[in-house]
């Protein structure tokens, strides 16, 4: 019961912290002070108090977009174990549902963008869908490989199975998975080198351009949903990459939070050392992630 409560509190409160940490890291690299660590929380509070403007050319789809997306992402968050604890919901085959919940969120973001009829957003929708076509298989294959390794069909079983002994036994395939997952983590959360979360230039955006027409609380939901997705995928990544287990369940929660923050710092470092990829290179990178995941699969299945 306590674990359930901690899970809910963490998954609701932690997400905006990650962009805050990333931005702080980037600022440090650029020799700036940077925005306060808690700035994303203030931003959310500000957005929630604002009014919303809806274009007259949009329909209910546009209004439903942010709500459905946030709901789907929140539902997906219930299936991901945090630290070494069982998630609130779990059943055999829930990994398929997890992937589809994320896809549902994306579908509604895209459809809401198309609903505005703006040429920018149409362009962004095309990009988003093209790139996620290549990112989704990586997540699925990763889950399949882990499922094979753990012999379990639920996310909880798959993700908490990874451990130091597993790394010693099948390290090669896990390294490939970690590399592929990290690329997807960056690509799916509009981080450099795939996308630039700070750009104001519509023509270069991928994720941001989809939500240009949203404002106020709806935009707050989108911002929060994006942060939530970042923490879900980070948690997924950490389970594979850093299987730190401890006997003490409370210490486990702490280790989990610290490793999340460290991952955010790592993302900030990558963003500071790299420029964005040319748009035509993005599919190639994602394809490389796919190939790595596929290799991991071959190593496990053979």
């Amino acid at each position: 019961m306590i674990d359930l409560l901690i899970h809910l509190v963490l998954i609701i409160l932690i997400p905006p912290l990650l962009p805050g940490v990333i931005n702080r890291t980037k600022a440090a690299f650029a020799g700036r002070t940077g925005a306060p660590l808690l700035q994303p929380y203030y931003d959310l509070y500000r957005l929630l108090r604002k009014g919303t403007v809806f274009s007259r050319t949009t329909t209910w789809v546009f209004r439903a977009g942010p709500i459905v997306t946030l709901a789907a992402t929140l539902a997906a968050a219930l299936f991901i174990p945090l630290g070494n604890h069982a998630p609130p919901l779990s059943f055999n085959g829930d990994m398929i549902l997890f992937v589809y919940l994320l896809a549902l969120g994306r579908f509604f973001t895209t459809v809401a963008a198309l609903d505005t009829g703006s040429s920018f957003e149409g362009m962004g929708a095309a990009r988003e869908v093209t790139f996620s076509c290549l990112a989704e298989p990586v997540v699925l294959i990763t889950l399949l490989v882990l499922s094979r390794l753990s012999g379990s069909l639920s996310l909880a079983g798959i993700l908490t199975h990874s451990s130091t002994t597993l790394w010693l036994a099948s390290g090669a395939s896990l390294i490939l998975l970690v590399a592929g997952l990290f690329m997807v983590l960056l690509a799916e959360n509009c981080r450099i080198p795939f996308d630039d979360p700070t750009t104001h230039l519509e023509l270069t955006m991928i994720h941001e351009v989809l939500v240009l027409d949203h404002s106020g609380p709806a935009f707050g939901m989108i911002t929060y949903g994006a942060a939530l997705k970042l923490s879900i995928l980070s948690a997924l990544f950490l389970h594979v990459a850093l299987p730190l287990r401890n006997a003490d369940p409370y210490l486990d929660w702490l280790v989990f939070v610290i490793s999340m923050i460290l991952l955010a710092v790592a993302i900030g470092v990558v963003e500071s050392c790299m420029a964005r990829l040319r748009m035509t290179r993005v599919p190639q990178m994602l394809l490389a992630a796919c190939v790595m995941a596929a290799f991991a699969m071959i190593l496990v299945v053979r």
Partner: protein
Amino acid sequence: MSNDSMLNTLANGESIPVRDVPETALEVFLQGIVDLTGMGWRIASYFGVPEREGVDLWCILAGSLGRLGVFRSWVEGRLPSITPVCPEAHLFEREIAEQCGIPVDDHPWFKPVRYQRSLDRARDAWGRGNDEPILPGVGDFYRVGGEEVHEVAVGPVHAGIIEPGHFRFQCHGETVFHLEIALGYQHRGIERALINGPQATSMAQMETIAGDTTVGNATAYAMIREGLAGMTPSPQAETIRAVALELERLANHCGDMGALAGDVGFLPTMSFCGRIRGDFLNMTALLCGSRFGRGLVRPGGTYFGCEPGQAAELARRLEEARRDYGGAVELLWDSPSVMARFEKTGRVGSDDALALGLVGPAARACGIVRDVRHDHPFGLYRSFHPPVCVEPGGDVLARALVRWKESQVSMEFSLDRLGSLPGGDSMSACGKMGKGRLAVALVEGWRGEVCHVAITDGAGKFLRYKVTDPSFHNWSGLAMALRGGQISDFPVCNKSFNLSYCGFDL
């Protein structure tokens, strides 16, 4: 008739009596432009002076060996276009049509340039009535047909809230077939305000033609006034002007390097260069109290002198900024991901650059040796010649490299000049302007050639004052750079040119 006898030549900053400018028949005049541009001359300025019966056409060509050629003609009714054989004339012809109200025949893309009324408001090339509103960007745009082609319209409100301009892309997926640029949102009527001038406000207006080229435009205007009055400023004034011009170049090039890094998401260089740009601006402020060099250059010299202590302080700060700037830019060159993004993005071939008559860093990045400081030296550059920085690539990388090389040369040059600052007065009296004369002043601003031309009437007032900003030549270069490129590359291409909207709109 040989081509050379068709035009009278003068040096940069000189003035000649209007009656010495050869006037030829229209066909000979137009053929002359076509022939001479094919022989290495290029159009620096080509404009009309509207009269009651017709239009007085003037053409200033820039040639080799520091010569500027000038000749004139007269047209009534309609002007035949030479754009099909001389592409660099295309905007000039549209401008003549707009400013003088005469239609141009057979122009391949005959549209207004700035969406303004003609200078004398007597005629209109498109037959629009005087009570009909003229709105910028309203009109036909080039369209590509077909189901798979889509159009993307950007602006006039810019994503970075810089200046207003409208861009129309004809795209096939992510590939750009064609980009058309419509400007004119910031037209303030600077040229019209100068007719019968100079007025007391003229100097301030010149400094705000393009706020980032304050020293460039102010120097060109001062050169015109001095050329028409037949005086030369003191050695100290020449040195301060040159140093201020180089500081302006440094501040803008440095800002551009940072902005280029920012556009590809490379934050360290963006942040560092943003700060160092401020250091350069503050150096200009040390000279005259204004970070953008306002109030510094005046006809007759510079309003502010430079004490030895000031020069030493300036040199110290410059030395410091040189170190920081070098470090920040080094980061950029050392990042393979940045280089991969810059290379082969937004290429303009040198053939296209020559045909369109590009100027400034945009031309030099296409391997064209074209620099007013070298080709038509003025002021201090008559005695000291900073080397011309050229890169052959024609892509974003080449434009970035040219900026960096030029910055290094500028810093070296400024430090040298500050070390041997001549004494004496910085300001001397600039007499009355001569009557019935023509003066041409070219200045290498940081964007390229700033060209001012003035014609005085019988009373020694401006009959016509023509300003040609480097952006006027270069906007078509940006459109060419995008052709066949990726639409997502537009921001970084745009930044690599960094053209002026208000300098174009006047």
